[in-house]
């Protein structure tokens, strides 16, 4: 079926099979390899992208059903420079496999403002599994990115 999807500000006309996942379309058809597949079942957050500004899981999203504009980690990379630097400053990544998903999720939170409470922030980041860092750096990096200070 024909579909028109806006990805990172660019409108793409694609011929899609109904069962094609957004993650595969991004990676294999559009060459946007930043989004990673960690589980394929919507359980780990590594494939997080924004649709209509909302964080969703591209591994359980059928591409043909996408109606709003999609932003991937490539699309938010510039906006996320302070957050990415903060990730580096705080050891918020080690292997980096979950990191694109963390960054995309982080950007969506920063746009709306972070909750003041540490516990709430941690809950809001709990859809993104990280097996390396124990999350401490991720939480600190978000705070740094918000305050703009190092």
């Amino acid at each position, binding site marked *: 079926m024909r579909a028109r999807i806006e990805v990172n500000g660019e409108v793409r006309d694609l011929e899609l099979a*109904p*069962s094609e996942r957004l993650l595969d379309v991004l990676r294999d058809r559009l060459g946007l390899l930043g989004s*990673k597949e960690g589980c394929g079942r919507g359980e780990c957050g590594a494939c997080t992208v924004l649709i209509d500004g909302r964080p*969703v899981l591209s591994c359980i999203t059928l591409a043909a059903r996408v109606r709003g504009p999609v932003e991937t980690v490539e699309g938010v990379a510039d906006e996320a420079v302070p957050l*990415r630097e903060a990730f580096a400053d705080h050891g918020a990544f080690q292997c980096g496999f979950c990191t*694109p998903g963390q960054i995309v999720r982080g950007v969506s939170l920063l746009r709306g403002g972070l909750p003041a409470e540490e516990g709430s922030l941690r809950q809001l980041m709990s859809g993104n599994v990280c097996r390396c860092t124990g999350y401490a750096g991720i939480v600190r990096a978000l705070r740094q990115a918000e305050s703009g200070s190092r």
Partner: protein
Amino acid sequence: MQVGRRIRNVDWPERTVGSVPFTADVRLPGTLVARVLRSPLPHARIVSLDVTAAEAAPGVHAVITSEDFGEVKYVHHGGPLADRHPLARRVVRFLGEEIAAVAAESPAQAEAAVALIGLELRPLPAVTTIEEALERGAPEIHSGGNVSLHTERRYGDVAAGRRRATKSVQGRYRFGRQTHVCMETNSTLASWDEEEGVLHLWTSTQAPYFIRKEVAHALGLELDCVKAHEVAVGGGFGSKSKISDHEVLCAALSKKAGRPVRLVLDRAEDFATTKCRHDWDVRLETGADEEGRLTHRTARILVDNGAYNHSGPSVMGYGSLVMGSFYRTDGVDIDADLVYTNKHPGGQFRGYGGPQATFAIESQMDELADALGMDPIDLRILNANRAGDVTHAGWKLRSARLVECLEAAREAIGWDEKRRLGGSGRGVGIAAAIHVTGAHVYEGAEESHAGVDVRADGTVRVRFGGADAGTWQKTILAQIAAEELGIEAEDVDVLTTETDETPLDLGAWSSRGTFMGGHAVRAAAASAAGRLREAAAKKFGVDPSDVTLTGGQARGGADRLDLGDLVRLASENGELSVEESFTADMEPVNPATGVANLSPTYSFCAQAVEVEVDRDTGQVKLLDVAAAHDSGTIINPIAAESQVIGGVAMGLGAALGEELIYEEGRLVNPAYINYPLPRAADLPPIRVVFVEGKDPVGPYGAKSLGEIGLVPTQAAVANAVAHAVGVRVRKLPITPDKVLGGLRERDARPRRRYHLWRRPNRWEIALIRWLYPRGLHRLLHRWGTRFARKQEPRAIEEIRAPEEIEEATRLLEDGEAVPIAGGTDLLPARRQGLANPVTLVDLTTVKGMRSILETEYGDLRIGAGVTLADAARTPALDEVLRETIGRIASPQIREMATVGGNLCQQKRCWFYRNGFECYKRGGVTCPCYAVLGDHRFYHAVTKAHRCQAVTPSDLATTLTALDAEAVLARGGERRTLPMERFFTGPGETALRRGEVLVEVGVPAAARGRKGAFEKLRLWEGDFAVASVAASLDLGSGGEVRDARIVLGAVAPTPYRAREVEQGLVGRRLHAPTIAEAAEAWTGGAHPLPGNEWKVDATVGLIRRCLSRLGEGESTG
């Protein structure tokens, strides 16, 4: 100074946007996709294997079986212990074992071809636990019996120690099977070049050398003909430090097909078939004299090896060395057996036997301290290893700041003050650890080689044959090269892995990366620096010793020269290239005595943990962790701190939740959603203290750090729990059932009675449950499952997007059509073989289903298509609903999932979801695996019939308490059902074919009541283990006028506890009333043996809900 600097990861710009290529990101033209045929049985003889149909299938380019490998076995640790073929030969020994593999043009073609392979198996009796495997007459997994290796160690003089002992304690400690769950599953891209006769490999590994070696061995190639290429590696934690059973298959397929082939394990395969941490059963005795000096330690150890050896012998051996080294004792006796079972094998995992040994040693140290009446830290300090010691196992401790670590942890956690709170529900515990810095468990482990190239532009490249699996090793090596060459680390790039360009290093394992690689790179960089200084000295006319390299220049007296210019002087080709090697002072274990200085130096740490134990639910809440580490000099504090925190987090996971669970040899929980590894909200602050000091042999004084962070953590938590509530848990993980069970035992509370004899409607179920272990389960499992209905996977052919509900319901009249809203359940269920729609009918395009409004009468009408997140953002939504939604799944799922979808989701029973041919998946001839399987958390304690599952929706629980009604539509018809009647079974609803849930209504009367929701779950985002929604109408005097108490996850459908409601009406919410009422429903329970604790936990949750509602009253 570059060493000691807080420098960013060298790849940070790429790693933070995912542009550094992982194996799945490397694109080669013509790449085929591989899939593996795995054994569906835990133990069986292969009667026949026919791949002709698969070979002829469309798109297939290669199929391999064990015939492609002959009698070859993996090398593993070499010698007679090698016991595994790359593909099963004649016998399969675990469920999931690789039997054949296919390479095809597309995933669908590869999967279709795998399905065409004709496989006939004759089942053999399986032994899936240590206990079964050791029974007399147990079926043999390999010829020669089920004990793969027996080891005895006699260190020092235990008899003398015993004579001196005035106190001794015994205990049995069980670690359980934890698994790595690297975020990147095991992945390989292989490309055979026929012309060159070379196999190119891109593979997610910590140790390219070992993969090359195994691949060359299995394929009969020279080592030089297998070339590894650099890729990013998405976590290793030991699992990728040796072969991971898929690389050879991918390579063989590529060679056979003559095309590049990619094999990426899916998450369930990664969980269920790759290696995990060995489960250890340790019977330990520790003795001490009057002053508390340790006298002796004896250990009887059984290690669950799984079906093949891999590094089992080495892991068991290493743990024994820890037993023989940790703390000063007179003697240590160890008897250890490595026991084969029909499960996927254990293997290397961060800590390598250390965590299992340390959990026993350090739990028992606290028990001993209790017996001696000593402070646990004082006891440890008294017996601590000190610098200069040589342990019984021959470890030469060149530096040891264990005492300082203990003191630092004591200080950081506020030990002295918090120890006074013992028994209050809050507690602190401590545990310490020792660990190697590189280990001589493999030939050549004592060596590392590295190259350094200084270029004419003054930049530097490090060439290193190991790999960086996420430990920041490239950054560490860049810092070291920069340090020696007087430049900034940012001006160094590091090339790893590449066979043609990098000198040999055995990789990142045994905590050797920084020490071994660091020394080798330092040697190479120092050698390059020496040559540059000489060239500068010549130019400046000074002695080389008067030349310093700093700021990218050589300086001597008043003269300065840029490094790049020097390179042109020092070498002819415009690049100064140096390779050097390093050999560490370490030795392999003497197999007869178990003695050796295994590692050049040893690290220490002590971790203190503060917990709060919820005595209502048994849940352990982590409040604080202080981790004090002696890793010598810290080369990069950012990386080091992240390593320790990550290690502690993984250790806390093993302490509190992570455990692989099996039934009939099949892994029950091969999914993130069933495996409680810590999410961000599950963890406390983890504070790291580095007790720094230079190690005499480490590079710049550095010692290891990567593994030790999780070694003591489990015991520290167990000790904290014991301190908090007086319950000693010796079997990991410390889940709520064990804590609550321990509390019940401690308080000598009588068992609950359920009066089944008075409840004829339960007799049939009681009988069935009685019969299950007496042959019924076996009958249904063995024979009944043969008649299980199967859902063949089908492609989705069409997605319809109706705008009107009438059209939607008309489309759904077709039996092949399935409604989809958020898709967060349907699409995973499709992968799980629980849904195979041909047509999807999108309900999110239907008008009028995506709004929430309040009617003029004060009712709330919630469109079924509203996402959970949108609902929570709606100001009109009742607080108790917002609270409930906030506890559902993850923020991402809440953005996608809808209210209707949440209510209609299928049951989440982990047997049903994860491939068991159960009663609900397969039909009436199949067993419910929960009856005898692990039903501690997610199964019913009342009302269950043949299926023990529950309705997983939290909204269902709360909406039932709010007297909500479900509005169902079919065509132009509407019908309304109270929520209680909407659910007909576990995750099953009253919806008929063609009928759609369009709206949920909450009546004004219920909205006027006060509500509360409480939920017990194992991790943030988990489904309920038990939940309670309370909705009370309180009078002006605080008396309860009307009540709804609904229990979630305790019965097949949301369970209205009317006895509790009756116990409340007309009374005020005083503590005795609450306590009595909360118990009132329990007489009607009918729990399974393993989930009776949920009755207690649910009572606790009811009390908490009611207390919360009562509190508001007394203060308001």
